[in-house]
């Protein structure tokens, strides 16, 4: 998605790169406990890396990581997290990556932020507050000529406390109860044709493709806010997102909705795959041959 026609040549060290930011920069707070926005811009991350104040997490496949990654980044392939994603295992992962309660974490991937979102959500879920998505993908970071390295990073083990945040979590039963609640909106973040084919009854479709801009994994907050307003979604509504299988696309939607200023957002990580396997009701739309319009 993000592609710049010309990679930018940077001069050594003394260059300060200015980038249009998607989110406001980190507000200056006492240096010991800085906090991150949901999306971290390039500039901020580079500064944090320089100051050694951040744990960068690369969620791509391990061999991709080994070929090159953002400076200081650790490797956590999404599959590794998903293979065992109960809260204790996630805490274990945090400990092994050297992420303690106060560590700032910035996560990136090479799939428009969806994988990073799923990992970031998991960290939030077990009680890690300071986590953000990098505004660009690795591919873009590299194209911009920013700092990368090949050496595998390892940090000393720490001990993260556990404080599960059920306010951002939904399961099938929760969805079922939400279906007829006017104040709760279920959002399907798969693409339009998949949604038309079948979806959870009463859900609305906000495809993940709607959320990104040409150069950033998420559009800017005012744009996202306007989209929600158009849809008649109130900032006070509770929203539950789901997608096709493991909560990646809907993870991205989770962060988009938060960015839009909606405070109560939940993710149904097991998503439509589980919903169908449980034999729950779904809405199908068979009165039109919309797939035949696709030129794929």
């Amino acid at each position, binding site marked *: 998605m993000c592609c710049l026609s010309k990679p930018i040549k940077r001069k050594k060290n003394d260059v300060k*790169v200015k980038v249009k930011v998607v989110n406001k920069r980190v507000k200056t707070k006492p240096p010991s406990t800085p906090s991150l926005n949901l999306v971290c811009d390039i500039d901020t991350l580079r500064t944090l890396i320089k100051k050694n104040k951040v744990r960068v997490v690369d969620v791509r496949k391990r061999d991709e990581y080994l070929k090159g990654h953002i400076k200081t980044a650790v490797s956590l392939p999404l599959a590794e997290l998903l293979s065992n994603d109960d809260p204790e295992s996630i805490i274990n992962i945090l400990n092994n990556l050297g992420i303690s309660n106060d560590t700032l974490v910035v996560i990136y991937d090479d799939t428009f932020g969806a994988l990073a979102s799923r990992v970031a959500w998991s960290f939030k879920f077990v009680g890690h507050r300071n986590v953000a998505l990098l505004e660009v993908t690795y591919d873009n970071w590299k194209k911009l000529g920013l700092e990368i390295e090949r050496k595998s990073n390892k940090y000393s083990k720490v001990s993260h406390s556990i404080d599960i945040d059920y306010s951002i979590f939904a399961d099938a039963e929760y969805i079922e109860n939400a279906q007829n609640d006017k104040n709760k909106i279920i959002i399907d973040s798969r693409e339009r044709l998949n949604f038309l084919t079948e979806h959870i009854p009463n859900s609305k479709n906000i495809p993940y493709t709607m959320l990104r801009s*040409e150069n950033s994994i998420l559009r800017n907050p005012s744009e996202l806010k306007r989209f929600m307003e158009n849809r008649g979604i109130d900032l006070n509504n509770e929203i539950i997102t789901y997608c096709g299988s493991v909560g990646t696309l809907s993870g991205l939607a989770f962060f988009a909705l938060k960015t839009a200023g909606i405070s109560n957002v939940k993710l149904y990580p097991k998503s439509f795959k589980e919903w169908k396997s449980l034999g729950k009701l779904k809405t199908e739309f068979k009165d039109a041959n919309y797939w035949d319009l696709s*030129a794929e």
Partner: protein
Amino acid sequence: MAKSIDYDVLSSAKNKELETNEKWGLAEESEYFANKVKLYRQDKLNADEFRRFRLQNGAYGSRLNSEFSMIRIKVPGGDITPTQLEKIASLSESFSIGSAHVSTRQNIQLHWVQLEDVSEVFRGLAEVGLTSREACGNTIRNVMCSHFAGVCPNEPFDTTPYAKAIARFFLRNPICQNLPRKFKFNFSCCPEHGYVRIADVGLVPTVRDGVRGFRVYLGGGLGAASFIGHLLEEFTPESRLLSTSIATIRLYDRLGNRENLARNRMRYLVSEIGWEKFQGLLLKERILVEATISIPTKKSYDGFLNTGDLNNTSISSSSTKSKIKLPVINSNSADTPYTRWLNTNVVAQKQSGYYSVYITLGAGDITSSQLRILAECIREFSLEKKARNTPQQNFLVRYVKADQLPKVFQKLSGNGLGNPGANTIVSTVGCVGTTSCNLAITNSHRLAKEIQSKFLELNIDLDKDFVDSTIKISGCPNSCGQHEVATIGFYGGATRIGTSMVPIYTMLFAGSTGENGELGKAIMRIPAKKVLDVVLKIFEHFKKERTGNEKLNEWIYKISNGNGAGEIKNVDDMKKLLLPIIELPAFSAAPDFYKDYGTDTNFVAKTARGECAA
């Protein structure tokens, strides 16, 4: 302080091209639309009022699902820039289905857009100068212009600026915001290319005593009942184009039928009061218009015309004035994919050394990534840096130099855009049918794609006998697929065979476009799943029985007029030949024959209220 260099990851250099096309869209209309949707959702605006508003702004309801809209983006004259194509690509990805659809009237449609997101699409369109305003509704629809205008060896002058000036003059113009029904202008480049006889106003350029002008045809149009337009007068000088257009619209606005939905196009008015009477009234009306037209009105039109002309003067290279047909580059080895493509998709322009290149689509569909490739292609290889979309649901990239053609092909074919057959029967036209239209009975869209892939598989594009012939398919009698002007046309319907419902098509023969265009004649009804067999059978007999170098369209024309020279002399012979083929096996033996393309359940003809007249 360290020195800083600025770069801006959010914008790209591309935006500079904007100036090459006019601005049709207005950003404020997007916000206005968003607000109306909110009012409608809050029940503060009634459904009828909202529907009228929605259609005026270019958004149709989608098939049996009013949550979603189809947005019809107008491309006046079919003229479109790479930046505009890229914007459509990203809007489709964000809000539609990741593909766009080129229509039969030079619009580009985005389907299955959530009603609440329509305003966002409008916003994006306005950013690149596009609009969908008055693409639907009872007003002046997209003004068409031959995609060869400006490069056609037979044209007396380029009609594009006139088409655009007319489009510009009537867009948002109070005199046409509430006509009895939709109203269509079609400009051609020469007597051969263009859909001038099936428009409310069709215009063929001509020059008399050194004065530019038109032969104006009025009252044509396709639909459940179709008519061929009448010639208003031998010569209408360009100075009277505006007054003639205004007079026609005023007359229609005043006299047109506003009661009967099925008979309110201008062609019914013409046929009811008779052409002579209509013609007389019109000529009088024009005198009135000319006597009363205000200077600012006239000036605004002249202004539009001049901008259009200026845009085009940049490339006026030497033109060969001889009356040649658009020649196809001939090559000996017809078998490499490149030469195949060259033979059917590349035509010489009147500007020597320049060629126009067709991009063959499947029933007009193109993905977002393909749109981006197309945009790159235009930037890289077209001197005018624009493209045209065609009523055959393809694109035409013009002003390409001969030595660039292999590179163009390489780029296109690497991305699924290099199919041959554009100017042959292979390039099948299909309306959207049951993929999105409320009125559709059959999946005409898929059928068109099936026929195209079968033809490609059979190498039919290699056969010169099929050049200039067409197959066009509509999913119901309304003719959005223009089946009446095809060599072989089809429109969808339903019938009962035994105890089962079956999707069927009525086949028509010998329709044609151009100044001498004629409407096709209905031949017989064919079950959807037998259409391909029937067409191939017709080909087989054509090959056996045609005389000399007769091409398919010529042979079909003879048969439909009862002048066949072989075993098949007329339509009745043809029917006899085909009857055995269209017979269906028993339902229990072959249930698939009773189903439509793209559906695995039994066929039912489901339709809802259409919005064509709203």
